[in-house]
């Protein structure tokens, strides 16, 4: 038992945990962050994967980070720096007639004028819809029942926002919000590659294919970044750890104590409230408020333990859909890969290897039945084109998100890892001939590895599928919204909470605000009872 008294313990020093900690400390709370891994950042980290080669080992692009957090926590002062921003997306075509998708429009020799026009209109309308979603993302989500004035006001504003879209857009939103991206893209575009590229944004990181319901919503969720001022993806200088370190420094500067390589084995609780945590070392740290940055399944099943919860909660937690489908490929290359038809500047953009929407749907079919797809879809970054510090002089790093690689594979992932890596390299070589000879070293992180390394149950980087049944007031599950969990003093601040995954920071910030609201006085914890849902 330690003598130090903390107001709040945060389990997990991911970017949301650090954000939450910094806001809480800024408001005068004494906060302890316990991170299991050797470095903070969770899935937003840089690490060496081969001698002298470093890479953002889970999240590779920054495109949704909320600007209010950057400003309010003064992250620029703490080292936040982008190596490149507003990158375009280039969808690679087998014949070298690539497409460019960017904020300035759709480019490519095979794209028709009607498609270009359609792209402009489509992206404009999607941005409007994402704008509505952004409004709901920047604050706690209203409860379904027991609405108080604050929640009613939020609902009212959402309703008003929808009304203000105008009749046509409102009808448009209501029509497409629940359907699938396949149908919507078929309606709008002719070019197969455009459709495939856009449908990747609707399915990446989820257990859905282009024809699955919810995919329009996940597309809108991804576009939140554009509302937040990102006109395309960015590359963080020094990799994702720079952002996490900046958040950690901001937190520390406000008085947060951060301990790394300290796994928490239990969140301790009485029948009605949390009392602190027990560390893997056996040490007990007490605090009246415990905030979990871990995903909801890990939080409830492993850290609290199902026996400490009521059956309905156990059931809802068990039913959270969170099966990862993304693997991460890291290549250490002795020179820049030569993609057919791309110059060096273009090679530094976001490169997509997609087939067609039908091809991707078939790829998802394999995933549904526990097989990895033979035609993998890839989202590729070559960060060394923007940031030379990541690799030895003249050498390069290629990092790719690979889909579909289902968490629940029929075989053991370890037994097929080599074959799968080979398949991925061959796929890359179709577009960058000779890349197989440039590889000095490679690393493949399967969803099972991602789970092990980043403690993401199911290897799901969003801490639960972002789909209509698991967002807003039903995230992470019905009855546990507004960050307060069904145990007094327990909060969730990670991607499993509203507004969900992506390196956005809003779950952490919103959660901090909710904790402060429920427990205004630092020394008086009596008010925390109100947080019980």
């Amino acid at each position, binding site marked *: 038992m330690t003598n130090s008294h903390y107001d709040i313990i945060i389990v997990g020093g991911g970017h949301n945990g650090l954000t939450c900690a910094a806001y809480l400390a800024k408001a005068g709370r004494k906060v302890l962050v316990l991170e299991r891994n050797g470095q903070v950042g969770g899935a937003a980290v840089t690490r060496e994967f081969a001698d002298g080669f470093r890479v953002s080992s889970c999240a590779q692009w920054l495109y949704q980070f909320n600007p209010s957090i950057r400003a309010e926590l003064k992250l620029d002062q703490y080292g936040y720096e982008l190596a490149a921003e507003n990158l375009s997306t280039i969808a690679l075509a087998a014949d070298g007639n690539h497409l460019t998708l960017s904020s300035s429009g759709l480019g490519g020799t095979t794209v028709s004028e009607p498609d270009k026009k359609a792209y402009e209109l489509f992206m404009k309308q999607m941005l409007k819809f994402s704008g509505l979603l952004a409004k709901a993302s920047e604050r706690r989500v209203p409860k379904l029942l027991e609405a108080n004035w604050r929640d009613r006001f939020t609902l009212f504003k959402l309703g008003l926002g929808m009304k203000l879209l105008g009749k046509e857009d409102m009808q448009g939103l209501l029509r497409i919000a629940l359907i699938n991206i396949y149908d919507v893209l078929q309606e709008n575009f002719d070019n197969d590659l455009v459709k495939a590229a856009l449908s990747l944004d609707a399915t990446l990181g989820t257990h859905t294919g282009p024809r699955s319901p919810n995919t329009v919503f996940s597309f809108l969720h991804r576009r939140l970044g554009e509302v937040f001022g990102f006109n395309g993806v960015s590359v963080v200088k020094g990799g994702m750890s720079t952002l996490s370190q900046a958040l950690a420094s901001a937190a520390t500067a406000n008085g947060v104590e951060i301990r790394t390589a300290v796994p928490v084995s239990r969140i301790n609780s009485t*029948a009605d409230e949390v009392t602190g945590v027990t560390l893997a070392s056996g040490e007990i740290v007490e605090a009246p408020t415990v905030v979990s940055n871990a995903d909801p399944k890990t939080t409830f099943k492993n850290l609290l333990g199902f*026996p400490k919860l*009521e*059956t309905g909660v*156990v059931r809802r937690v*068990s039913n959270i859909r969170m099966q990862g489908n993304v693997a991460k490929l890291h290549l250490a290359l002795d020179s820049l890969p030569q993609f057919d038809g791309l110059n060096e500047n273009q090679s530094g953009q976001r490169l997509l290897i997609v087939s067609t929407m039908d091809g991707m749907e078939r790829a998802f079919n394999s995933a549904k039945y526990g097989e990895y797809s033979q035609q993998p879809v890839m989202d590729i970054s070559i960060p060394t084109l923007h940031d030379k510090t990541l690799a030895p002089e003249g050498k390069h790093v290629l990092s790719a998100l690979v889909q579909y690689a289902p968490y629940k594979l029929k075989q053991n992932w370890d037994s097929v890892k080599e074959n799968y890596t080979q398949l991925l390299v061959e796929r890359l070589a179709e577009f960058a001939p000779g890349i197989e000879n440039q590889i000095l070293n490679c690393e493949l992180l399967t969803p099972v590895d991602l789970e092990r390394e980043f403690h993401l149950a199911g290897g799901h980087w969003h801490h639960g599928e972002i789909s209509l049944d698991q967002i807003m007031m039903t995230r992470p599950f019905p009855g546990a919204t507004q960050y307060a969990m069904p145990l007094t003093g327990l909060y969730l601040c990670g991607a499993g909470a509203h507004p969900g995954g992506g390196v956005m920071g809003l779950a952490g910030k919103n959660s901090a605000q909710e904790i402060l609201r429920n427990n205004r006085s630092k020394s008086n914890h009596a008010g925390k009872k109100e947080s019980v849902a």
Partner: protein
Amino acid sequence: MKPHDETMMLQTPFHSRVAKACELNQWDEWKGYTTPTAYAEVEQEYFAIRNSTGVFDLSPMTKYRISGADAELYLNRVMTRDVSKLNPGRVGYTIWCNDAGQVMDDGTLFNFGENDYRLCSYTRVMDWLQWSAMGFDVEIIDETADVAALAVQGPTSCAVLKMMGFEGIEQLKPFGITHFPFEDAKVMISRTGFTGDLGYELWVEPAKAESLWDRLFEAGNNLGIRAIGGDALEMVRIEAGFLQAGVDFVPAEETERIGRSRSPFELGLSWLVNFDKGVFNGRQALLKEKREGSRYGFVFLDVEGNKPAEDSFILKGGKEIGTVTSSAWCPTAKSNIAFAQVESKYANTGENLIAEIYYQRELKWTRILTKCRVIESPVFSSPKRRQTPAPDF
């Protein structure tokens, strides 16, 4: 489970004997099984329970065997009462709630010792029990079809069992469990029942059911033994003040309309809720209800006159404040009893209310407004129920 190959309805292991005795051939359905509502004459069956011995086939009762290292911990999380206080060899009345603190069902819990329990319930709740089992080392088996059971109830029931050769059965305390050899098998006897009087329940493997029935009726021949159906049991359980799931409350997870389920407090079962034992299903909601008050109160009503207040509205000052869930003229207590759900502020003993009763005589319907009064306890409770050694009569 038996497959429904030839008939829709399942038959209990006593069926051959029950069917033979059931002169009225009047059957009802009980969780998939055929069960007689009456054998010949309901009144005679009622008086058999009250004056001699009534035998009721309760095999259709849902039965779960719950065992494993965490069985006690598990049951303590599921049930609202403190299961750790239920000693081995004892039976306890119990209820369980969903997370909203609404009663899912009531039943009896048998502690066989060494983390081995039997739960008897009205509803089939395997899904809930399994969901609840996540995180616990327990095994749950539906043994409904594997155990045949008879309720042997009434003032001469102990004497009947002694006649059968179950020596020393009179020493069994209320809610106790004991075992006797029976032919080449075993019979388990618990001193439990649904009648408010001296009574036992006999549990055997299905293969022994018929001979158990035969030997029981042979032994009780001179002690007024009679098979009884559901109708007579309904009269005695109302007289004795026992709730019936599906009648006096709707199992919470079976309700379809918001607000139709009831909490333990609203059913007069607060004595079965223990907040000192830690986490259990419904705890948070029930703590809240305790702080903020309940919507309804459960009351026993002594209704004037002899017209059962069947499905009546309960009024106060001309305003509807509740409804009757069970009602009966109780011959032994000689009172007209009703169970009612009323707004909680009218649920106090001594409260005078009005029952709006409709009844029909020779096709003519009459509506009467009858005075009734909230009484503290059920109208029938035999001292024999608690006496040990149990009397012969």
